[in-house]
Structure formats: structure tokens, C-alpha cells
């Protein structure tokens, strides 16, 4: 019988990599890696609790990176998908990668590789979308504030983009679903957790925390936007008839 072992980790990325390390050490062909608190046990499965060990995590990370830079990105992105069983799929992927003789390019004709690539792409697309569609509103204490509700946990992925682009303004991006945010104070980005009960979303629910001119710019913007979309629709329509 080929029983799968369940490894339970603390939900951090380093924790996950540590689990991968342990699974490699024990030469497990399959590993069921699960987050603490979300465990769905197979009836007779053996379990082991993993203690996050940055050194071990680092070794896995470096090992994969030596194999392929694309793979390392795909692993990190796919992990942020928080999809069910993503950890086990990634373990399978890493085993394949480390077992392969070829460095670098990935094997697109392999199902597991294809699957991870697809998930990573989906997450990548959402990252891109968030970078483009986060809308900041200026608060009276000069913080540009935005909230988002992404399908995947993309905050860690978009941090760099906003840090580079808006290096000279304070900003806060808050994930309503996961209840944490990134705050940039002109020097560094910090992860903050706060429970926003009063969500400042739009110009219909105006909020006193924002500057007066904030709503003027929002109106101006929606007017620009409308005029553009209309011309585009007209153009499209003309083409169809």
C-alpha cells in the first residue's frame, strides 16, 4: 500500500518550503501538504507537523532556482493562488523539476507542469489587473488609499510595482477578503492588519476621511472614461452593421 503522508505547516511560504524539504528528505513520492487550521484528514493518513525553518526553506528555494528561474516564479505565483491542494501539486512539480536532467526550460507537454503554468498565469493576470486597476483615493492625512478584493493573494506580488511607481507618496492598499494591507510610508512597505468595518469604497458612499477635491477628480475621471468608452462602442457598432 502506498499511503500518502500528511504534512501540516503554518501557512507561510517558508513553512511550505520547509515541508517540501522534509518530504524530500523522507523520499515521499506523494506528500499531502496542508495548512494548519484547514486540515482535511484522510481517514488513516499519517500526519506530521512541520516547524518552519528558514534555512531549509532557503535550500529548497536555491535548489529550484539553480534549475530554472521561470520555475521559481511559477512556484511562487501558483502558491499565492491558495487553490485547494496547490501544495501537493507543487511538491509533485518540484520533484519532477529536480529529477529532470535538463536545466532551465520547462516541459510543456507534461500535465503537472502545464497545470502549474496555467495557475501561475492566472495569478499573474490578476497581479497585472490589480496593478492597473487599483484606484487610490486621497485621504485628508495625505495617504493614497485603495481597497481590493482579489481572487488570489496578490498583495505580496504587487508590492514592488507600487513601491517603484509611487515612491514619493504615502499609500495603503487593503485586501478586504484577507483583512490585511500594505502600507508605504515613503521609506518602506509594511504589512499591516486592520479590521476595516467602515469600508471606503466609492463616490456614492462619500466618506469624510477623503479630501474634498477627491470627489471632483473622481467625477472628472468618470466623464473621461465615459466619453472614451462611448466612442469605442460606436466604432465597434459601425463595424458590425
Amino acid at each position: 500500500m502506498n499511503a500518502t503522508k500528511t504534512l501540516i505547516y503554518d501557512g507561510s511560504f517558508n513553512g511550505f518550503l520547509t515541508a517540501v524539504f522534509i518530504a524530500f528528505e523522507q523520499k515521499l513520492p506523494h506528500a499531502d501538504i496542508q495548512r494548519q487550521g484547514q486540515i482535511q484528514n484522510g481517514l488513516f493518513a499519517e500526519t506530521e507537523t512541520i516547524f518552519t525553518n528558514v534555512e531549509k526553506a532557503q535550500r529548497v528555494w536555491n535548489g529550484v532556482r539553480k534549475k530554472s528561474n521561470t520555475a521559481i516564479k511559477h512556484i511562487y505565483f501558483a502558491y499565492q493562488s491558495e487553490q485547494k491542494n496547490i501544495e501537493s501539486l507543487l511538491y509533485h512539480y518540484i520533484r519532477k523539476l529536480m529529477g529532470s536532467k535538463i536545466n532551465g526550460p520547462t516541459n510543456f507537454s507534461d500535465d503537472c507542469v502545464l497545470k502549474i503554468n496555467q495557475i501561475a498565469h492566472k495569478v499573474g493576470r490578476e497581479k497585472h489587473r490589480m496593478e492597473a486597476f487599483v484606484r487610490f483615493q486621497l485621504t485628508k492625512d495625505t495617504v493614497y488609499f485603495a481597497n481590493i478584493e482579489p481572487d488570489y493573494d496578490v498583495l505580496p506580488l504587487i508590492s514592488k510595482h507600487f513601491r517603484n511607481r509611487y515612491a514619493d507618496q504615502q499609500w495603503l492598499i487593503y485586501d478586504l477578503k484577507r483583512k490585511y494591507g500594505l502600507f508605504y510610508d515613503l521609506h518602506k512597505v509594511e504589512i499591516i492588519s486592520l479590521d476595516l468595518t467602515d469600508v471606503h469604497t466609492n463616490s456614492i458612499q462619500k466618506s469624510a476621511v477623503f479630501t474634498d477635491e477627491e470627489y471632483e477628480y473622481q467625477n472628472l475621471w468618470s466623464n473621461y472614461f465615459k466619453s472614451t468608452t462611448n466612442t469605442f462602442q460606436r466604432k465597434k457598432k459601425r463595424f458590425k452593421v
Partner: protein
Amino acid sequence: MGDTGTGICHSYTEDGRCVSLLKILLTNHCIFDCAYCVTRKSNDIQRAAFKIQEVVDLTINFYRRNYIEGLFLSSGIFKSADHTMERLIAVAKKLREEENFNGYIHLKSIPGASDELMYEAGLYADRLSVNIEIPTISGLKLLAPDKKHEDFIKPMLKVKNEIIRYTEEKKIIRSTAKYAPAGQSTQMIVGATGESDKDIMYSATHFYKNYNMKRVYYSGYVPISTDSRLPALGSEVPMLRENRLYQTDWLLRFYGFNVNEILDTEHPNLDMDIDPKLMWALRNLNHFPVDINKADKSVLARIPGIGMGSVHKIINGRKFRNLSWEHLKKMGVALNRAKYFIICNSTDWERRDLDAARIKGMILQSSNSKYKNHYSNQLSLFN
């Protein structure tokens, strides 16, 4: 210049990312009378102008809220080319120096602007463009009698030379400032003067080659006047044609095609039913079928239904095993087109000796709905 109105548009940065830009026409006053343009002097419309500071405020406030990634600024010509160019530069300079703006700036430059101003413009703008608008010199004479061909060419040449000079200096002194890092582009109006696709693509090739152009844009003429020199009001905007031209442009820039392989005196126009790569392949059936598991990258790139993304995947994938139909399908190859032109690891392939017309007919039948309903202004129809 030529274009009208204000709104949002999209452009491509130095590293090929698509960005959304706030598009502003500084003024629709114009001393010129180009027949194809709503802003032309003889047109009876309301005239207005933005103040320099207004454009700066709008841009920076939209930018800081992440509505836009940059500014696309153009203008009708008031007083003179230089006077207008100075105002465009003033906006860019204020944004950079007073507002610390590090977004993208595209200045649509004014034909006839002086070399000094073109030089200054490149210090603040990421991209400069002088729109040629009319692809043939005879067409230009007919429709834009105030403009001389040299007025377009001279600023383009200046920009090209500055870009070359800066790149040379950069090799020696690393800290050299940038000059128009996203290069220059131009635009041609399609369907205003009865020009052929060959006229357009040959002139585009000329600009790519001789002026270091990053992009040439093709814009279907939108009828705006009853002028007898132009297509009548209500004529259809040639959007499908515009799309076919873009596809051809991509074949030239990324797929290793030469313009005369696609368009020549015998075939001066593109086929509207099918994409230009398929058109080429049908005319050159002797190059096919191609063996997916053996062919060179450049040969793969010429197969209809296979985009550069798939080429890349095929080359990586076949290192591990011989690829079959199933693999190709998963990689996103458009088999409905590709299958007539390839063999792969399968005994099942098209053996009938089909001629070009039969193949075209079968492809059109299998993809009818796509060509009828699915129209995309973006350029992804190769995969």
C-alpha cells in the same frame, strides 16, 4: 494632429508593456486645413484650448490615483509649428521638473517644428511621434496642401539622430541622460486616398528602416466631411483592413517575413477573409508540410495558426518527447488552421492533395463564426 478629442488610449512602453494614457488635445484651433481632420481651419466647430497648468494638474492627479500611467499629448497648430511645439514641451517639462512625474509621456510632435525644439522634447518625453497621416506623397498634396513632405521628415530625422547619438554616448558615459527612451512612432490613415495595402506597408517598411521607428500605427479613416476628395460620410470605417495591416506589421517585425513576400505588384492588397500569414502559406504550399518535431524556429514561425508563444513552447516541449496533436492542442496551437500545414508524431495527418482554394474553403468553414463575430482590435489573431 489629425486625431481628435480627449480620453483614454493605450500605448506600449520601452519594454513592451501596454499602458493606459490620458489623451489630451491641447487645442483644436488650427491654422491648417487638412481635409481628413475635424480640427481643420475651414470646419465650422467650437474652438477651445487647455491652459498648460490645467493639463499638468489633471495628469498628475490622475496619475497619483493610478487611473493612468501617462500622458498622450497632441495639439492643433496655433500661430506656428514652433509656438505650438513650445507649449507641448512646457507641459512635459513642468510635469517632470515641478511634479516629479515619472510616468510615461508621448508627445505628438508638430510637423515643421525646429530641430532645437525636437531636441528639447526628447529630454522630457518617452516617445515622440510625427504622424505622416497620408502614406503617399501624391495623397498628401491632394489632402493636406499646407503641409510639405519635408515638414514630417525633418523632425523624424532629428529624433532618429539624437537617439543614435545618445545611445553612442551611453556606451562611453553610463550616466548619460535618456533621450526619448521609448523611441519614435508614426501613424498613417488608411482608406482616405485609395492607396493600396502595398503602398502602406512599403512606406511603413521604409520608416522602420530609415528612421529607427519603434512602431507604425494604422488608423482606419473615419469619414468626417463631405469633401469630394474623401470617402463619403457614412462609408464604413475599414477596421478589418486596419487589423490585417497590423497583422502584416507583426509578421514583418517578429516573424521574419519580408514585405515583398506578402505584398507585390501581383498581389497589391491583403486578403480580407483570412490573416496574412495564412494568405502567404496558401500561395506557397511548396514549403509545406512542416515537421513540427524537426523544423527550425524560423520555419515554425511561418506556419498558420502558430504564434510566437506556441513556437517557443514547441521548441521546449520537443526536447522531452515527440509532440503529437494532443500536445499541440494543449499548447494553444490553432489546429483548425495549422493542421493542413504540419506533420507531427502521429500517423493521422492530412494526406489528401488539397489545393489552396480547397484548404481556404475548409478553414473558413471551420472558423466561420470567429471571423464573423469575433473582431479584436488587439493583435492576437495569430494564435
